[in-house]
């Protein structure tokens, strides 16, 4: 068990090193020498390139650049070009804003996907299965921003509530209940939108897992023992089908950043995804590179967590 953990940890460390190298290498996509400023690329003026050289120590040898880059990052020396604040502090602040959106979205995804996927697998080939299958494909295929606009028009027209931003301004005089409901509406719509693709993918995956397990010998054994169908499905099959999902719990972490760019932009939600988008618009390179690096680390931490969780739930790995 410890050996397994140790191996996983070392592996993750090696991956981490390469992730840091790649994140760092991204800055090389920008032109390196002021003389090489591409006249066709209006994003790079001479001043920008000069600033670039200084911030990323481009005049030093490569390995020093790499080390200096991460030293600056972790000591808070690496600052946003836009407002001069430390990149890490900035990200942390926005991260806290994104957190409720992420938690509600994940909760919606997981609580909906499982019943839907399991039910579809049990009634395989039936009407419920077919319609949820089609619905899942529909949700996967719909462009997120298009769906967002449809949903905004619908909600605004039907319930007459504002949904853009984190809260409605000028409500401070209103009662507590009104303010609470205001926050809930503002939180709910983007969360649902963020969850749609996840629900579609996860419920398909749950269905596949469930079907896989339902064809196993031990499910037949359970039936041969005379157990009621509910016990066969929800105890013997489900417990086995759930195993891989426990590990997926670690993998929701990266959704914190990656999935939220478009939705946070549409809803003007001051979260990490919107910050990243704004950074790209403002060519705030230290922020852009750091966000990439941190989200890759989140994935790595997520996979490590899922290794850990797997050990807890699967009796075969225990030692």
């Amino acid at each position, binding site marked *: 068990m410890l050996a397994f953990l140790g191996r996983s940890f070392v592996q993750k460390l090696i991956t981490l090193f390469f992730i840091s190298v790649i994140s760092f290498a991204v800055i090389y996509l920008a032109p390196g020498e002021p003389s090489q400023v591409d006249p066709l690329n209006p994003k790079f003026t001479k001043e920008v390139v000069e600033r670039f050289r200084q911030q990323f120590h481009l005049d030093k040898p490569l390995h020093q650049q790499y080390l200096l880059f991460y030293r600056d990052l972790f000591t808070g020396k690496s600052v946003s070009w836009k407002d001069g604040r430390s990149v890490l502090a900035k990200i942390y602040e926005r991260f806290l804003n994104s957190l409720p959106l992420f938690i509600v979205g994940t909760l919606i995804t997981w609580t909906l996907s499982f019943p839907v996927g399991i039910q579809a697998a049990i009634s395989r080939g039936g009407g419920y299965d077919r319609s949820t299958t089609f619905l899942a494909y*529909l949700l996967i295929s719909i462009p997120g921003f298009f769906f967002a606009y449809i949903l905004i028009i619908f909600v605004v027209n039907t319930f007459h509530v504002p949904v853009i931003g984190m809260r409605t301004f000028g409500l401070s005089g209103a009662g507590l209940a009104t303010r609470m409901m205001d926050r809930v509406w503002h939180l709910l719509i983007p969360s649902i939108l963020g969850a749609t693709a996840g629900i579609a993918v996860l419920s398909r995956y749950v269905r596949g897992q469930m079907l896989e397990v339902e064809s196993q010998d031990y499910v037949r054994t359970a039936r041969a023992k005379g157990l009621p169908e509910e016990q066969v499905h929800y105890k013997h099959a489900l417990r086995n089908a759930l195993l891989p999902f426990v590990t997926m719990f670690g993998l929701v972490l990266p959704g914190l950043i990656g999935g939220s760019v478009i939705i946070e932009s549409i809803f003007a939600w001051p979260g990490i995804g919107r910050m990243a988008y704004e950074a*790209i618009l403002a060519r705030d390179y230290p922020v852009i590179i750091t966000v*990439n690096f941190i989200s*890759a680390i989140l994935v790595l931490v997520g996979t490590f967590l899922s290794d850990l969780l797997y050990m807890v739930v699967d009796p075969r790995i225990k030692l």
Partner: protein
Amino acid sequence: MQDSGSEHTLSTEALDLPARQTRLQEFWAQLRKNRLALIGLVIFVLFFIVAVTGMVLTTGTSPQLDSSLVRLQEKLRPPLSRPNLKSLQADEVPVLGIYLLGTDELGRDVFARMLQGAWVSLTVGFVAVGIAVLIGIILGGLSGYYGHSPVRVAQVFIAVLVVLVVTNWSRLSFKTLAVLISITVALAVFLLFSRKKEFGGPLFLLNTQLFSVDMLITGLIDIMLCFPSFFLILTVVALLPASIYNIMIVIGLTSWMGAARFVRAEFLSLREQDFVTAARALGVSDWRIIFRHMVPNAIAPVLVSATIGIAGAILTEAGLSFLGFGVPPPHATWGNILSDGKNYLFDAPWLTIIPGVAILVVVLSFNLFGEGLRDILNPKLRERH
């Protein structure tokens, strides 16, 4: 059993061979049972035709607009409205004599722009996925076929030295460069000879293996999977000059991991099968084995992931366009028609709804067809239905 996989590739291209006809018929019979996949295929073909006719019917990338109209209300016209024939040149009249899908905020014919956009979306999807599949097949194939081959210390040194030299070309003095290059050459020579001879002492260290090719490539896949793909694409596209080619290349370079994994898994299991062993025993060259025997067998899952990948690429392009980093004007894509239209959401809802629904339908058809293809090409799954 021997050619159980090659049928899939051949069945699509070898229409005229009677021996393969039955395979195609079988495929067709399977497809007809899967109604969703069939609908997907029909829409897919329609989309293809639309995209090609769009190239022919419309005037390339130049916008079709009525320059006599000045005010916004005049320019934004709902679907099925008649154009002002007096002010239009002969070649500016929309295809069917009416603005089938209305006009946009510049008075451009949305139908014509949608046709152009179909072509661009299709190109982006196919080229991006083509790049991804190519990388996937090469890396996945290398990893699956040569997976056990060791990577030796000397080879790693060479790689590091080459990277150092190339990246620091202008910063290092002539002397250091010369030293670095000569060390690299010396190592290369050493590698050439070390295959024949046993080296003792410290030189032996250079020849020890560090890891295998397979570990290298799967490691690379894992690393690439760590990056949030959409944001990485956004970053790279934002750093590079805006162009449709950059978008295709970047989407391709960040989405090859799935294909590589499939090909690797397929190759690993094919390697052990009798017909490959037999071919190897007959002295058939590695390249021939890979391209004549293994790639055709491994192509089925790649085809599936490619179909679904095209859907993903179209969505990604639309997302990029929406954020303002997509295909730059004057190219029309469904993504930038939509993102331009969002400013007139209430005055001209068709500008949002038409491209939105179009993207939805096309992406849906690719997804449905891809899933159907997966079911058909995977006999194990077929039994379950």
